[in-house]
């Protein structure tokens, strides 16, 4: 009250009260603005901290569903590929088997790394294929489209010679058709760059391999 009066240099006492009131009101306004700026900065900081967490794919997202389900789908292809690589009699069957096993195992590593960086468990809370439209209806006995049944896997493990080559090619053709279908569903529903690019690569690879698997089957069957 006294400081503004001195600054104003006004000796009159009555205007001092008036000016003092305005000054304190102004000072009060400055405090409010300062507080608003501080609160605003804090909110912005909190928002900045939270945004990456809120914008990255969540537990029930298409991307997380794809990463988990494609991991499982791939894992069976690795199993079949390694059997063909180890015990196939046809040279092309062995080389395709090894290629599929190693490249899909590599994909599994990438997909599991996404999940970890998104702060998610490898295991989801949603049913299999829930991320795909009508996806859960496609699951048969816990198996996603194209996956071999336990009986078919047992058959493949027991098979020998040309029988193994043919059975592997048959099973892998079905497996790839299912895999391409799942990759397509991701491409329809997601625009997460890494995931889209990986799904596109899987689709390209498996479509090319489908041609080669079918040609090999025709050649071996004679």
């Amino acid at each position, binding site marked *: 009250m006294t400081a503004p009066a001195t600054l104003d240099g006004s000796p009159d006492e*009555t*205007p001092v*009260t*008036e000016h003092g*009131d305005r000054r304190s*009101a102004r000072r*009060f*306004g400055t405090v*409010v603005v300062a507080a*608003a700026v501080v*609160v605003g900065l*804090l*909110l912005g900081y*909190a*928002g900045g*901290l*939270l945004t990456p*967490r*809120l914008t990255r794919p969540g*537990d029930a997202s298409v991307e997380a569903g794809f990463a988990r389900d494609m*991991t*499982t789908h791939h*894992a*069976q292809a*690795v*199993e079949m590929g*390694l059997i063909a690589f*180890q*015990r196939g009699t046809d040279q092309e069957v062995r080389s395709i088997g090894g290629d599929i096993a190693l490249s899909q*195992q590599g994909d*599994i*590593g990438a997909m*599991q790394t996404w999940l970890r960086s998104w*702060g998610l*468990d*490898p*295991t*989801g*809370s949603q049913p*299999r294929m829930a991320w795909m439209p009508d996806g859960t209806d496609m*699951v048969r*006995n*816990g*198996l*996603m489209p194209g*996956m071999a049944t*336990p009986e078919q*896997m*047992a058959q493949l*493990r027991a098979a020998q010679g040309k029988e193994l080559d043919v059975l592997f090619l048959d099973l892998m053709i079905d497996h790839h058709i299912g895999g391409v279908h799942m990759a397509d569903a991701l491409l329809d529903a997601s625009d997460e760059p890494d995931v889209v690019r990986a799904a596109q690569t899987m689709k390209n690879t498996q479509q090319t391999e489908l041609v080669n698997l079918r040609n090999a089957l025709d050649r071996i069957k004679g």
Partner: protein
Amino acid sequence: MSISTPGGPERRPTVVSTGKKPAAGRPSAGAKAASGKPAGAGRSGGGKGPRKPVTPVKVSQGRSWGPIALFTAVGVLAVAIIGYGAWATFQGSKPWEDRANSIDGIVNYREKDPELVKGGKHQQGAITYSVLPPVAGPHNDAWQNCMGDVYTAPIASEHAVHSLEHGAVWITYRPDLPADQVEKLAAKVRGNEKLMLSPYEGLDKAISLQAWGYQLKVDNADDSRIDDFIKTLKVNASVEGPTALCNQGVTATGTTPRTPQQLGAQQ
């Protein structure tokens, strides 16, 4: 009638209360204004009534309090929303170890017996385990196939422990568990890699779940902790990470571990 009657009383109090608040504020504002204004009015030679100067001051005082209250309310609300979001995200991103420990009845051998869970050296032949069914320790170089395999006969612990090391959850049940209960467990396992199911002789509870260093025993296949255990520990509890294999393992049953000769013959 029924609509207008609840509507009326409900609205009226709000009108009254909003009327009261400014009214409560006014006396103080008026008092301040009264101290300053009449003096100012007197100086400028106020032949006019005291009412005119009082009114503008009142308005300016009321104007500054309204936005402040609003701003504070919005601020508090925003902080509450963001705070809740942060809290929820934080809770959801708790490490799996914390979530595992919060599963009711789980036994954490990583804390209880750190020596046991250190790692698994490979060892041929039968191995004696201190915890049954085993949750960690030395094991056969061949692992049990854990690609969602549903074994209908007991399997060798020496192979199964190796699967645990690779991140599998091994579900075991007492052989006398009713078929519909077994089927419920099988439905959780089928088609899911890093899971396997087998009967196990001599269990003290109907069902026992194993992951590397963890065990949970439950009485019923409908127990929701089974899914919690799988979600929290499958792969996460792995010593070797998510790309350790579950395929290329032993698919044979029987509690005696396979010999190298038998394993060679399998391929």
